[in-house]
């Protein structure tokens, strides 16, 4: 049985009182400043290691935010009703892509440490020369601008339209957002896929996998849904959204986490098995590095943790309908996403075994604290849920 809200939500919406959280906000702000300053030191002290650490942290947070953006456009494109009450938080996390676009700049500056193909002159490597039409610096830069530009424009436009609808509830905004979402869906697929090719796959220019973009997407969608569960629960703990988001919404979010746990495993295994079975040297090297030496332990942990542990737990209805338990699984999945990005990025540098560096941690803290700080600035500006969405009532009375 679901907990039913007996009090109707206030028509003016619920507002996050930032004055209650000035302490948290200033801690995050201070941490961000200190960590970013230390990262600048790292970039000069040990640019090689630092560039990989930064890319790892960037990829982790980028997939989380891009995933939330994905759920926003899916919500509009499918005209779904359940997600209306959680949509504002998806939009808030989605616009953090603006911050991430700025934090992408160090990757461009440190590109020569990350992407060896940028340094190799033409005529040296035939396999690289065959890819020059795609793998060259100016095209790389143009693509990065297009991808990030698309993400931040679409995220900003969708949030702006949604916030405008809070004022008068004009259904015109719903239709406009749906149109933006229709254009954004194919654009999202292309930008995420080729972004993954450019920023992660080209770390080793010999290697290629046509499934890599889908693999990154599968991890992003599942982990961002988990992040949403964590954010919603944190807001409920702070006393917000309690009459708005019910266990029925948790149940649906849990189902999506389960679905994308399966999808991640399906895509990840599909990618692995085809490469393993075909046994072509330029394809297998990616997995040989990651399945040997001490990387083997982390790869095993990823497969077991992301799928074999999460899957049976998420099968249970009692977990999906209980916020505390679902949060534990959600936190675990977010950690596994972090591990996933670590295993994709760092073996490109430390091919002989795991070598944890202090810059890995500092980059994570720097980007995480920055995003957390900006998030706490964005949340109080609008109601915590879209108060005049035409489908709000349906979402409040959700039964599934």
């Amino acid at each position, binding site marked *: *049985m679901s907990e039913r809200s007996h009090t109707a939500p206030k028509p003016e919406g619920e507002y996050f009182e930032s004055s209650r959280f000035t302490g948290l906000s200033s801690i995050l702000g201070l941490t961000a400043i200190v960590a970013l300053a230390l990262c600048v030191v790292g970039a000069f002290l040990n640019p090689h290691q630092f560039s990989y650490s930064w890319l790892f942290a960037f990829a982790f947070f980028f997939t989380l935010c891009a995933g939330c953006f994905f759920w926003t456009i899916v919500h509009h494109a499918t005209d779904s009703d359940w997600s209306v009450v959680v949509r504002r938080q998806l939009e808030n996390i989605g616009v953090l892509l603006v911050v991430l676009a700025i934090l992408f700049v160090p990757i461009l500056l440190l590109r020569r440490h990350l992407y060896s193909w940028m340094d190799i002159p033409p005529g040296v490597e035939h396999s690289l020369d065959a890819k020059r039409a795609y793998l060259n610096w100016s095209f790389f830069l143009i693509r990065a601008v297009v991808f990030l530009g698309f993400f931040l424009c679409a995220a900003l436009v969708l949030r702006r339209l949604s916030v405008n609808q809070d004022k008068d509830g004009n259904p015109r905004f719903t239709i406009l957002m749906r149109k933006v979402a229709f254009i954004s869906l194919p654009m999202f697929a292309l930008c995420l896929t080729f972004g993954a090719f450019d920023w992660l796959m080209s770390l080793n220019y010999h290697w290629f996998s046509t499934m890599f973009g889908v693999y990154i997407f599968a991890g992003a969608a599942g982990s961002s849904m988990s992040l949403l569960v964590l954010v919603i629960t944190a807001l409920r703990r702070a006393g917000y959204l309690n009459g708005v988001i019910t266990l029925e919404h948790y149940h649906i979010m849990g189902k999506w986490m389960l679905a994308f746990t399966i999808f991640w495993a*399906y895509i990840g*295994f599909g990618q*692995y*098995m085809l490469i*393993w*079975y075909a*046994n072509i040297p330029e394809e297998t090297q990616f997995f040989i590095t990651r399945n040997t030496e001490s990387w083997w332990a982390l790869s095993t942990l990823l497969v077991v943790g992301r799928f074999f542990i999460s899957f049976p737990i998420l*099968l249970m*209805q009692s977990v999906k309908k209980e916020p505390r338990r679902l949060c534990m699984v959600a936190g675990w999945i977010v950690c596994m996403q972090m591990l996933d990005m670590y295993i994709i990025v760092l073996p490109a540098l430390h091919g002989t075994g795991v070598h944890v560096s202090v810059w890995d941690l500092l980059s994570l803290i720097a980007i995480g604290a920055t995003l957390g700080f900006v998030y706490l600035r964005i949340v109080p500006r609008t109601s915590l849920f879209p108060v005049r969405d035409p489908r709000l009532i349906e979402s409040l009375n959700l*039964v599934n």
Partner: protein
Amino acid sequence: MMRTPAGHKVYAMAAEYPSAAALYEAAKHVRDAGFKRWDVYSPFPIHGMDDAMGLGKSWLSGWVLFGGVTGLLTAALVEFGPSSILYQLDVHGKPWNFWTVPAFFPIMFELTVLFGAFAAFFSMLGMNGLPRWYHPMFNWERFIRVSNDGFFLAIESRDPRFTENGVRELLERSGGEHITIVHED
């Protein structure tokens, strides 16, 4: 077994309701009166009806899990049996011990899904008592409207709380119309 004066077996006492909302409210009445053997009939699914009827969780999922695990074990048996034990085959120099398991995953996955789907389908039929050639409710000529615009509720005579007068009164109080006894055959 209750019988009518004419000697027919009694299947249920049934009533018709003017709308889905009325049927929904009536279901809550009957649920709160403590009946277990009863059902509602409508032309389309009504959201929240399972709560209004007080239905618990369906354990169809248990059978699906059983089917899925059976499928997984079947796949493991038919793959490891021949390829690792009965006739070990060297393909591309790949191992034939346990570590060749990635090559077997697709079949394991497919059979898990296939057996799970079979279990879901056949358990659904079984738990609903299907296939069934004829339902006693069709002995009531008004019931033909159930696939068009009729909303019906029937309390079956095998329910331990079933008494003709008590049930009739309950159905009347819940807003039922055309209350009648439905014959078993």
